[in-house]
C-alpha cells in the first residue's frame, strides 16, 4: 500500500499530499504522522494540500483530527494551499475546521509556524531588548 511521505525540516514535519486521498491512505497518514511527531519531537506540522482537488467530509474531518492530535503532542499544525473550490466545498459541508491553522502557501505556512514557535520566548526576548 502507498504511503504519504513525511519530510523532516528542522523541528518541523512537512507533508505534501500529491495524490487523491482515499480513506485508508488518510488513516495511514494519521498513524504515521503521530508516530513521527513523537519520534522526532517535532514542534510544527505543515500539510500541503495544493494538489488535492477533491476533499470530502471524511478527509476534512481527518485534517481536523490530525491538528487535534498534533496539539496534544505539542506540535502546531498548518494546512496550506487549499484550492478555492475545495474551500467552498468544505464550507458548504459545514466543515470550517476551527482547530486548524491555514495559510495560502508553504512559504506563508512556514512563517506562521516559525512565528508561533518563537512567540513563546520571542515575546520575552523582545521585552528584554
Amino acid at each position, binding site marked *: 500500500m502507498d504511503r504519504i511521505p513525511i519530510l523532516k525540516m528542522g523541528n518541523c514535519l512537512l507533508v505534501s499530499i500529491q495524490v487523491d486521498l482515499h480513506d485508508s491512505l488518510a488513516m495511514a497518514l494519521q498513524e504515521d504522522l503521530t508516530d513521527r511527531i513523537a519520534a522526532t519531537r517535532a514542534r510544527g506540522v505543515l500539510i500541503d494540500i495544493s494538489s488535492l482537488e477533491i476533499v470530502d467530509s471524511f478527509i476534512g474531518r481527518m485534517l481536523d483530527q490530525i491538528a487535534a492530535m498534533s496539539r496534544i503532542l505539542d506540535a502546531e499544525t498548518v494546512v496550506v494551499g487549499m484550492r*478555492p473550490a475545495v*474551500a467552498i466545498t468544505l464550507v458548504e459541508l459545514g466543515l470550517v475546521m476551527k482547530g486548524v491553522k491555514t*495559510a*495560502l502557501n508553504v512559504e*506563508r505556512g512556514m512563517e506562521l509556524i516559525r512565528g508561533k514557535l518563537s512567540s513563546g520566548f520571542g515575546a520575552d526576548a523582545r521585552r528584554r531588548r
Partner: protein
Amino acid sequence: MARKVTRPGLASVLRENRGEIIEEWVGQLVAGPSRGPQVDKAELRGQCMSFLDGLLEAVAQGNLTDVGAAEYATLRDFLDHFSRVRAAGGFTSSQTASFVFALKRSLFARIQSEIGKSPVEAAALTLDLSFLLDDLALRTVESYQKSREQVIIRQQQEIAELSTPVVQLWDGILAIPLIGTLDSARTQVVMENLLQSIVDYSAEIAVIDITGVPTVDTLVAQHLLKTVAAARLMGADCIISGIRPQIAQTMVHLGVELDVATKSSLADAFALALERTGRTVRPIKE
C-alpha cells in the same frame, strides 16, 4: 395532428387579393387602438408582406391546422424574429399579438366577398383560419415572452458580475465592496471571486465592505460567515466593514453574531489590516 384540409379557394384568395389585404391590414394596424409605439409604415408593410407570404406558402400545401409542421417553418422564423424585435422595441405582449389578430378583419372580408356565394364553405374556411391565426398569435406571444425572459436572465448575470468586484488596497490586502442584497447565488459568486483573488494576489487579509448591503438578516449573516470561513481555509483573515448603525441594531435584535473582526468604516478596517500586516500610515512631516 395535421388534418389535411383542402381549401383550394383560400390560396387563390390570398394570392389574388394580396395587395388589398395588406393595405387594409396596415391601415388597421396604424389606426387600431393597440398599435403601441410609432412604427414606420413602410416597415410595417414589409412585415405584413413577409407574414402573408409565409402564410400563403404554408396554406398552399393544404395545411390549415398544424402550426408546428414543416410548411410553417418560414412563418415561424419570421414570427420569432418579429416578436424579438417588438420586445426590444418596447411593445407590450398584446400589442405584439394584435399584429396577427388585425389580419382577421381584412382577410375575412375578402373571403366573404370572394367565396360569398357558398356561405357554408365560407363559414368553414373562416373558422379554420380563425383557429390558425389564433395559434400563430399565441406563438407570437410565447416567443415575445421568451425574448423578454432572456433579457432578464442576461441582466441578472450582468448585475451579478458587476456587483462583485475585488480590489487590491495594498500588497496582500483585498477589499470586496458588496452592493445589493446577498442571496445564496450571489454569495457563491462573491466567494468564488474572493477566493480566486486571494490566490492571484496572494492576499493575507480581505476586507468585506457591506456599506451597500441594504439589510442584514440571519440569512445574509450566514452567507457572510460562510465567505469568511472559506477565506480562512485559504489562509486569509477577513474584516467586515461598513456596518451602519441601523444594521448593527437589527443584527443585535435578531441575535446575529459575526464571529470576525468588524469595523464601522472601510478606512478603519484598512488601518486594522495594515496594522496586522505590520505596517502603518503616518504623515510625511513629523
